[in-house]
């Protein structure tokens, strides 16, 4: 060949030709896709984004499938014709039972407690066939009229997709455990079309604390998921919400009543589901094939006259929000939905409780509002506002996620003026529910399945013991490092402390008090030289006892000082005091001892 030899690649400038750039680009892409270009933490964030998009797409498909299934099985009318309304839920219920019992045994239930179990027990592993099974069985069940919703299954589908991706990407065990909540948030956010509520729910119910490093990833995936869902389904909110007006502060009394009614309704629903479910599970195995069909028959019979109870019921929530039903009818719908949802859920048909809870809340709220409006017109505004607040209130009472329930209503309405009535009625419903049903719904469902999951509610309310709960008064004066021994002996005369504390320029030190009596001490240059423990870490009264334990190591005691003055000794803490504080706490039950 007569052509001149090509110059060596390293000799050419980096941007000379596209051909020369190509290897560099390929190498960069290769490094990026292999994850080598990103540290594990950043790759986790990137993966959260991918999970969010996957979650959003899968939930869009899930919703389309449910709606298509509904139209295909029951027709497009709000009032399906008689043969379909009874037969379809029965036949579909039987098919769902076959699928659940023979093909997808892990898809029973709502999906929230299963996701929690994946996080806390199975290292974040959600089998992918659960995703497929949940998708198919829920679409069939909800589409045929079972009184369940698509939100909790969406949460589990999201978690399942995240788990599968995490495994394929060879995430570390620690990251893999965190990836399921990321997917759960994506699934729930897309299903609810409300990212804040989804993030809060996952934090409140699945993760359990705000400190987890996964928070950023959860937010990223939820936002990505909602963006995708809105891209395909439009950015219209789940419900068209009427304008909320609080005419007079006295109206808040009406919301107190709503809180009380919703609280007791929550308790009744929880007791019904938690009593019925184990009883049905204890029936002979062959009956499990028939239970969803029987639940379907019950719903179908109710649906002949009240088709509103079938399926998720979003359209009817919308109507309740706009005062389109009389209060007596709303009350009846709430009661019928309670019966049908309890039957569907307890029968083992896969599906979620979010939508039914919102339905019951809207109907109950509307009924309370309508009743008050009718009999005490000066006390309340239009019933639609009560339906709106009622959704959040019953959600707080049944799901027991107070922050989510408040922000959910605000996010749905986009109106902060609703916050005061929502907080009032939610708090009342929450406390009534908590008083009569100690264990939350999802925890109790897990326990019924033989799994004891950590209670997020208890974890949220844990109050750590503080140094101030353990510290004691120091029965000797704090000595200065510059004190001569004779002066120190005089000052410490009569003190019963086994150790004496010395404050020097380099911090606090301690030495056994008997050293002062020792003749050798008189020859010591300073008190500091007597210290057997130097540079003692200091504690403050508001610090946790776990910190104190960590700092104590083999030291006999630690000084507790003021934050405003590191030389001002407030007390001391030793191992004995810490153990006594824990013992006192154990004896006193939940409440920590008062500061000494």
């Amino acid at each position, binding site marked *: 060949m007569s052509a001149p030899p090509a110059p060596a690649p390293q000799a050419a400038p980096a941007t000379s030709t596209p051909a020369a750039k190509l290897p560099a680009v390929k190498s960069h892409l290769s490094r990026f896709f292999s994850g080598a270009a990103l540290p594990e933490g950043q790759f986790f964030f990137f993966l959260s984004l991918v999970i969010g998009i996957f979650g959003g797409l899968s939930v869009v498909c899930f919703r389309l499938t449910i709606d298509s299934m509904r139209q295909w099985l029951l027709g497009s009318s*709000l009032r399906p014709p008689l043969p379909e309304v009874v037969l379809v839920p029965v036949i579909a219920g039987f098919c769902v039972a076959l699928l659940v019992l023979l093909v997808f045994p892990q898809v029973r239930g709502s999906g929230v407690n299963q996701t929690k179990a994946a996080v806390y027990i199975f290292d974040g592993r959600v089998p992918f066939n659960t995703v497929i099974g949940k998708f198919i069985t829920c679409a069939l069940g909800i589409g045929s009229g079972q009184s369940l919703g698509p939100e909790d299954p969406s949460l589990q589908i999201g978690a399942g997709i995240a788990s599968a*991706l995490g495994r394929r*990407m*060879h995430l570390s065990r620690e990251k893999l455990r965190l990836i399921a909540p990321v997917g759960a948030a994506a699934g729930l956010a897309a299903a609810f079309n409300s990212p804040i509520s989804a993030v809060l729910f996952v934090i409140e119910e699945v993760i359990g604390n705000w400190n987890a490093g996964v928070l950023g990833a959860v937010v990223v995936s939820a936002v990505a998921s909602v963006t995708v869902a809105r891209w395909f389904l439009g950015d219209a909110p789940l419900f068209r919400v009427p304008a909320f007006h609080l005419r007079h502060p006295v109206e808040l009394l009406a919301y107190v009543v709503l809180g009380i009614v919703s609280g007791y309704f929550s308790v009744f629903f929880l007791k019904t589901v938690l009593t019925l479910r184990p009883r049905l599970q204890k029936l002979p195995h062959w009956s499990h094939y028939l239970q969803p069909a029987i639940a379907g028959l019950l719903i179908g019979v109710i649906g002949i006259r009240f088709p509103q109870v079938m399926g998720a019921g979003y359209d009817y929530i919308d109507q309740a929000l706009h005062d389109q039903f009389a209060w007596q009818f709303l009350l009846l719908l709430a009661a019928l939905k309670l019966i049908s949802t309890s039957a569907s859920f307890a029968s083992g048909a896969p599906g979620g409780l979010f939508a039914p809870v919102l339905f019951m809340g809207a109907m109950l709220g509307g009924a309370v509002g309508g009743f008050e409006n009718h009999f005490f017109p000066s006390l309340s505004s239009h019933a639609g506002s009560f339906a709106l607040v009622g959704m959040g209130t019953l959600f707080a009472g049944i799901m027991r996620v107070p922050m989510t329930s408040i922000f959910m209503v605000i996010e749905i309405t986009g109106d902060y003026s609703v916050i005061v009535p929502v907080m009032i009625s939610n708090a009342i419903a929450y406390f009534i529910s908590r008083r009569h049903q100690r264990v939350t719904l999802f925890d109790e469902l897990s326990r019924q399945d033989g799994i004891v999951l950590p209670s997020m509610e208890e974890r949220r309310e844990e109050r750590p013991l503080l140094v101030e709960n353990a510290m004691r008064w120091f029965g000797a004066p704090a000595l200065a490092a510059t004190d001569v021994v004779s002066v120190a002996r005089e000052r410490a005369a009569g003190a019963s402390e086994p150790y004496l504390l010395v404050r020097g320029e380099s911090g606090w030190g301690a030495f056994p008090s008997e050293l002062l009596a020792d003749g050798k001490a008189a020859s010591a240059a300073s008190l500091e030289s007597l210290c057997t423990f130097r540079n003692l870490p200091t504690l403050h009264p508001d610090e946790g006892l776990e910190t104190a334990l960590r700092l104590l190591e083999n030291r006999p005691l630690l000084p507790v000082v003021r934050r405003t003055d590191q030389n001002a000794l407030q007390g001391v803490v030793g191992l004995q005091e810490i153990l006594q504080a824990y013992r006192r706490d154990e004896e006193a039950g939940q409440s920590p001892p008062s500061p000494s």
Partner: protein
Amino acid sequence: MNGSDTPEHCLDCGAEIPAGAKECPTCAARGVGSPSRQTAVLLSLLLLSALFVVTGFATRAFHYHEEQVAEEWLRRGEAELAAGHTNEAIDALRNSLVYSKDNRQAQLRLAQTLAAAGRNDEARIYLRTLWESEPGNAAVNLELARLAVRDGDVSEALRYYHGSIYGVWDSHVLERRRETRLELIQYLSSRGLRQQALAETLALAASLPPDPKLETMAGNLFFQQGVYNRALVQFKEALRLDPHDEKALAGAGRASFELGNFADAQRYLRQAVRAAPHDQEAANLLALSASVLELDPYAAGLSADARAQRVRRAFALAQQRLTACTPPATDARAPQLAVLAARLAAMKPQATQNALRRDMDLFDSTAALAFEVESAAAPVCGPGSVDDQALALIARVRAATASGIIPGGGL
């Protein structure tokens, strides 16, 4: 929970991995090897792209299907409505809205149907929702106004009618506004709110295009409100645009008649009757006008002889009226008629042609007695002949003129 002594589980299949083993024996036996992270990321992005495209197509197809379903239900609703099946129409329209929540046409149609079915509360809810999102929507305002009319809430009705009149219509804006204002005028008139009705009618008249039919309509409105001079202006305007408009001619005749301009009335009514011979009311008024013009003893330009003759004729008509009218003795007004008959009998010898020509006081008192007889006889004995009606009318016009009232001169 996951301490070091707990057995390891395979992250792919979940099977237990024996201590010391580096990989899952189940997966290894199945020959399932995990792809590298690089391959997994690439595959995921490819899958994501494919899923994005598939979801896009699925969503588009689904939305198209939903639009079709919504359209079909809307059509069915309209058909049911046309067939008079209101409840079925409501169900169909509700179904349509399930698949097309923001379809304002369906929402409005449903609200109208609910209102027509008397389900005002439900209709109001849909309308309020529409109104909240679009307060300037004229059609929504109009429906809300009609609901307020049914509730008897005048202030709300006025508010929404005005919202509709000044709101945004999709098409035929001026026509719709005019029709709405017309509806408002009729409502106000029915509630006896004359001043407000008149104000709206004036606003309506001011915004009319040059159309004889519309001018005639405005004239009729003024006429119904008793503002005959303004009505006459509108009728004249209509006649300027179309001199042969029979309704305008009749209207102008009636307005002139009410204003006491019987000569003008006769002129307009004669043309009106010629143009529309079937218009019995115009024909009657024409006869009455002619009779008034013929009988009025106070008409301008008459000689003393002619005046005296007219009074004598009126006197004779009054006498005939009482002779023909014999009320039952139980009627409370019978004695009054008897007194009038006695007065007629007493005056008859004095009311000669010459005396009436010379003595203006006698002339006036004779005419007054004749008018009084006709006025008193009408409620007891019925309207009487055209001449009797004409005399009673002349009596009313004279009384009104004497008390300073200009008939129909509201504006």
